[in-house]
Every structure is written in C-alpha cells, then in structure tokens.
C-alpha cells in the first residue's frame, strides 16, 4: 500500500548517538595491543578501515593509484604516531585526520568537477511562486524505486553522481551519508564548522535528489 504523505512527516533523524565518541574501552584495549605489536589487532583495523580509507582518499585525489598510495602512507603515519595518540577522538577519526592531511599534501585533485550549484541552482526560482509556494512540485518517485535502490546499476549511478560533486561536498557526503560518520567526527576530520558541514551536506543531498528524480522519472 502506498504510504500516505501525512505519515511521512516523521521526526528528524537522531544523529546524536555517538557524537561524543572518544576512545571506548574496546578501542583502548585495541590501542594497547597495537602498541605491543599485535599483528592480529592491526589486521582487524585494516579489515575495518582500509577500503573505506581508499573511498575517502578518492574524494581528494584523482586516481585509484594515488588513493592507494595515500592510504598506505596513512597507515605508516598511523603506526608512527601510535605512542602519541591520546585517545581524545576515536581511532577512525585519528586515522582519517592523518589521511586528510596526507591527501591534501599529495596534490590537488587534477580533474574536472562539474559546476554544481547549491540548492539555489538545484531548485531555482522557477520552482516557486513569488510567495514561496511550489510551481513545479516534486514528482513522486520513491515508491517506484524502493526495491530498486540496491540494484548495482543504481548504486553505480549514485557513485557517479557523488563523483560529480565539488570536492568539499563530495567529502562531506562520503563521510556522513556513505560511511555514516557523525557530525562531530566529520567536522574534526575535515577541519570545518558544524554549520559549514551542514551547508555542504545540504547542497550535496539536494543535488543528488534532483538528479535521482530526473533519472528515475525518466526510466
């Protein structure tokens, strides 16, 4: 049965869980093992983060080879800094901060980025009356695609859409919506304010939604 639009006036997503995450007991134990040269502990960390690190590195650099180099370099930086790590953030945040620094010094992403505007461009004045009401309301499409959103072709398209975003939007949406990091973690990793992070996230989501609407309704 189609969901009523009234049922959709749901509550905001609660992102507060984990916001004050610092080193948990498990991470403290893991850290101890890492400092003692426990390769199993290191392997578990690699299993957990390496491919995500490549994904994050690709938001900075232009090629897969460079992203792998940055990720490897990050691991080296991480093991060298193990003794200095004070547990003020999670291990993942620590690793990602190292990665962001390395990636920035590796070089500017030498690639074309499509000039994507903010919501002003994605949903420009033509969509609203002077009074601010919809002229061109959103076309319903989600009910038709719910079961198709996991299809490889759709995932591939979403990946490509993320690629087209300007770098800062791509970084925020990758960390928040693809990898599920919390607001404070993302702000700390990228060195941006919460307000700035929200603006970048808003622009990215607005643009991706618009592209999906256009593509799905054209299916």
């Amino acid at each position, binding site marked *: 049965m189609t*969901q009523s*639009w*009234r049922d*959709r*006036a*749901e509550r*905001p*997503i*609660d*992102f*507060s869980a984990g916001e004050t995450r610092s080193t948990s007991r498990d991470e403290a134990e893991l850290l101890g093992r890492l400092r003692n*040269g426990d*390769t199993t502990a*290191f*392997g578990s960390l*690699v*299993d957990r983060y*390496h*491919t*995500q690190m*490549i*994904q994050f590195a690709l938001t900075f650099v232009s090629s897969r080879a460079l992203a*792998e180099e940055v990720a*490897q370099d990050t*691991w*080296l930086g991480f*093991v060298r800094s193990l003794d200095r790590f004070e547990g003020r953030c999670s291990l993942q945040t620590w690793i990602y901060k190292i990665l962001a620094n390395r990636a920035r010094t590796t070089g500017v992403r030498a690639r074309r980025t499509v000039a994507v505007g903010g*919501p002003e461009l994605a*949903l420009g004045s033509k*969509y*609203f009356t002077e*009074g*601010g*009401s*919809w002229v061109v*309301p*959103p076309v*319903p*499409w*989600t009910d038709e*695609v719910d079961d198709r*959103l996991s299809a490889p072709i759709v*995932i591939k398209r*979403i*990946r490509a859409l*993320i690629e087209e975003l300007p770098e800062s939007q791509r970084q925020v949406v990758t960390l928040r*919506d*693809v990898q*599920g990091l919390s*607001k404070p973690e993302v702000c700390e990793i990228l060195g941006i304010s*919460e307000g700035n992070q*929200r603006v970048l*996230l*808003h622009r990215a*989501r*607005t643009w*991706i*939604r618009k592209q*999906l*609407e256009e593509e799905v309704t054209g299916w």
Partner: protein
Amino acid sequence: MRRIWRRRRDIVCREAVALVTDYLEGALSRADRARFEAHLRDCEHCSEYVHQIRTTIQAVGRVEPETLDLEVRNELIGLYRRWQAG
C-alpha cells in the same frame, strides 16, 4: 487576530526546502521545528520532498567500499611488522 499572527509565523515551501537539512540534522530551534512540522502536515509537496531527501540519504548509504585485496592486506601487515622491528 490569532490567524494573522499564525500566518506571519508560518513558513512557505521555499523556506521548508531550504531548511530540510537543518531539520533532519536536528539543528532547528524547537519553535522552528514546530513550524517546519506544521508546514509538512499541511503541505503534501513538501512532505513528499522531505521523504525524497530521506530516500536519497538511504540510497547514498548503499554505496559500499570495495572488498579488501588480500595481497594489500598482507603488505600492510608487513609494513606494521617492519615498523615494529625497526
């Protein structure tokens, strides 16, 4: 009188669309959130829009990183061992 007061405080669709991320991120004040939700209850289009943004977030969340190459894993563990030995 009350109606006029309410109207002045109501938000319009363009504002609701601009505020959607603030709403989903829990960044609106209690009063603004109440106005936003009141608008959603009255506006089918904005309710649909918020639903689409939520669907977009879910869809983006389905993008997975690649699987870890065993050879790369072994190389990294080798790097760690060398650092330990070094």
